[in-house]
C-alpha cells in the first residue's frame, strides 16, 4: 500500500523553494508542535502586486512538506489577488490526490498563505472573514453556514453535506464549534 502519489512523493523528496526568504514582505506561520505540523510560508510581492518569490519551512509529515512545496510553485508569478484564492482542493489535486486523513495538510498550506498575504497587507489575521472550521477536511465557515441556513440542524446531516467532522479527528476539534453555530442560528431553546 502506498497512500501517496508519485507527484506527492516527488515533492517530499525534492521539495521546491525550501528555506527562509530574507527579503520576504509577507510571512505566515500556522500549526503547532503538539499537533505534529508547523508551516511557515514566505512571500515576496513586487510593486505590481505579483508574488515574485515564495519559500517555505515545514515541520511535519511527507504530505505536509509536499503541500507546502507545491503551494509555493502554484503561487509564484501570480498576482496576490489571484493567489489568495488558492484552495486546499487545488493543492490536493495538483499533488495527484491525497488520502482523506491527510487533507489537513493542504488546508494548512492555504492557511499559511492566507496569513502571509495578511501580513503583506498589514491586516490582522484574526479578522479573516471566512475561517476554516474543520481543519481536517478544510471546510470553511461559509460552507457550513450555508447548510445551516438551509435549515439543516442535524450534525450528521451537516457532516454528510459539507464533509466537516468527517476527517482524521472525527470531529473532535470542530464539532463543538459547529454545534455552537447551529444553536446560534436556530436558537438555544430546545
Amino acid at each position, binding site marked *: 500500500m502506498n497512500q501517496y502519489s508519485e507527484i506527492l512523493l516527488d515533492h517530499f523528496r525534492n521539495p521546491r523553494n*525550501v528555506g*527562509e526568504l530574507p527579503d520576504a514582505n509577507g510571512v505566515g506561520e500556522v500549526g503547532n508542535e503538539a499537533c505534529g505540523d*508547523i508551516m511557515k510560508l514566505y512571500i515576496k510581492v513586487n510593486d505590481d502586486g505579483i508574488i515574485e518569490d515564495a519559500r517555505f*519551512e515545514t*515541520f511535519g509529515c*511527507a504530505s505536509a512538506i509536499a503541500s507546502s512545496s507545491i503551494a509555493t510553485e502554484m503561487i509564484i508569478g501570480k498576482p496576490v489577488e489571484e493567489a489568495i484564492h488558492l484552495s486546499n482542493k487545488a493543492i490536493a489535486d495538483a499533488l495527484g490526490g491525497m488520502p482523506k*486523513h491527510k487533507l489537513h495538510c493542504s488546508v494548512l498550506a492555504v492557511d499559511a498563505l492566507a496569513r502571509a498575504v495578511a501580513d503583506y497587507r498589514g491586516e490582522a489575521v484574526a479578522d479573516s472573514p471566512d475561517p476554516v472550521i474543520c481543519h481536517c477536511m478544510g471546510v470553511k465557515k461559509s460552507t457550513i453556514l450555508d447548510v445551516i441556513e438551509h435549515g439543516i440542524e442535524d450534525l450528521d446531516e451537516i457532516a454528510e453535506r459539507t464533509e466537516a467532522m468527517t476527517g*482524521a479527528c472525527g470531529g473532535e476539534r470542530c464539532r463543538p464549534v459547529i454545534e455552537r453555530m447551529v444553536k446560534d442560528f436556530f436558537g438555544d431553546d430546545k
Partner: protein
Amino acid sequence: MKRVYLDHNATTPIHPEVKAAMIAAMEVYGNASSHHSFGREAHTLIENARKTVAEGLGAEPEEIIFTSCGSESNNLVIKGVTCGNSICKIGCERSEVIISAIEHPSVLNTAKCLRGEGKTVHLCPVDEDGVVKLDVLESLISERTALVSIMYANNETGAIQPIDKIANLISGRDIIFHTDAVQAFGKIPINVKELNLDFLSLSGHKIYGPKGVGALYKRKTRKVCPLIHGGHHEFNLRAGTENTVHIAGLGKAVELSISDMDSEWQRLGELRNWFEAEVIRRIPESVVNGEETSRTAHTSNISFRYIEGESILYDLDFDGIAVSTGSACSSGSLEPSHVLLAMGMDHGRAHGSIRFSLGRSTTKEDLAYTVDALEKTVTRLRNMSPLYRDSMRKG
C-alpha cells in the same frame, strides 16, 4: 537497492524451517476431530505443537489454547472472565479491572469495552521509562479487583514490566492475573508457574512463525467463557476446526525461538547498543526513549527533535529501510503514541519518534547503513524545519 527490515516488532519473516513444517502439514488434511487415521494424523500434529508451546512456558499441554492471533487471545481472557454469564465467579462478581496505560490496543480497547458493561477499568500509569508504577498498581488493587492485565514487554519501547513483582502484589488475593507476552515470548525466558500467572497471550508471527495463529495459556484451575461457541475444539474454549498448518508452524517457531533465545538476546543486544551509541554520537539532539530501564534486546525507540516521524519513515523507506513511528501522522489519529505520552513525553518528542526493531537477519552492516541513511534524512528534514531554525537562532 539494499533493503533493511527493522520492523520486527510489527512482524517477522517466516523462518525457513517453519515454512518447511507448514508445507509438510499441508499434506495432512484430516480433521483433527475425526477418529480415522487421517484425523489422527492432524490431531498428532496439533498435540505435538501444544506440547512444544507448553514446554516453552513451563505449562501443561492442556493449559494451551490455540487461537487465531494475539489479539484474540487477549480478547478471550478479558471478555471471557468478565462476560456476566461466565462460570468464572471472580471475574463476574467483582467490578474492577486493572490494566496499564501502555497496553496494546487489543487489551486497551477490549478492557475499555467492559466499561459499557458496568465494570470500572483502571489504567495504571507508567514512569518516564515506560515501566508500570508498582506503588500505584498496589493502591489500585482491592477486593473489587477481578482482573489485572499487564503486558510483559512493550511493543514500542521494549520496556520489560515487573511481572514477578506484580505477581507478588496479587498473590494470595485470588485475583485473575493475565499478561500479554506477545512481544516477550520467545525472547525472554518465561515460566508461568514461577510467575504464578493465570493467563498469558502469545502470537506466532512475532517469533518467525505464520500470521493468523496465536495461543493463550490458561491455568488449569481458572475458568474462561469462550468467544467463539460451537464444537468441543480446544477444550470447549475455542470452537472451529483447528488450523493444522498454522498450528504446526507455531509449534516449530516456538521450538526454534526457545533454542536460540539466549544467543539471539546476546547478539541483538550488542548490535542494538552499538546502533544507539552511533546514532547518539552522530545525530545531535536524538534521545533514546526508555533507555534507563531493561528492554527487549532488539528494540530501540529514538526521538529526533524538530522533525516528525512519518516524514523520517518515508525518507528511510526510499533507502530501503523499514521502521515504524509513534507519530500521529502515520496512524491518521490526532494524538501521537499513547505509550510515549503515558511516559510523560511532550507531543513534539513523541511525534519525532522512530522505532527500530532488530531481528534474526539483522547484521552490523545493516545498522551501519541505517545510521548513514538516518543521518542524511534527519539533516535534510531539519534543514526544512522552522523549529530547527528557531533552535539554531537561540543557539
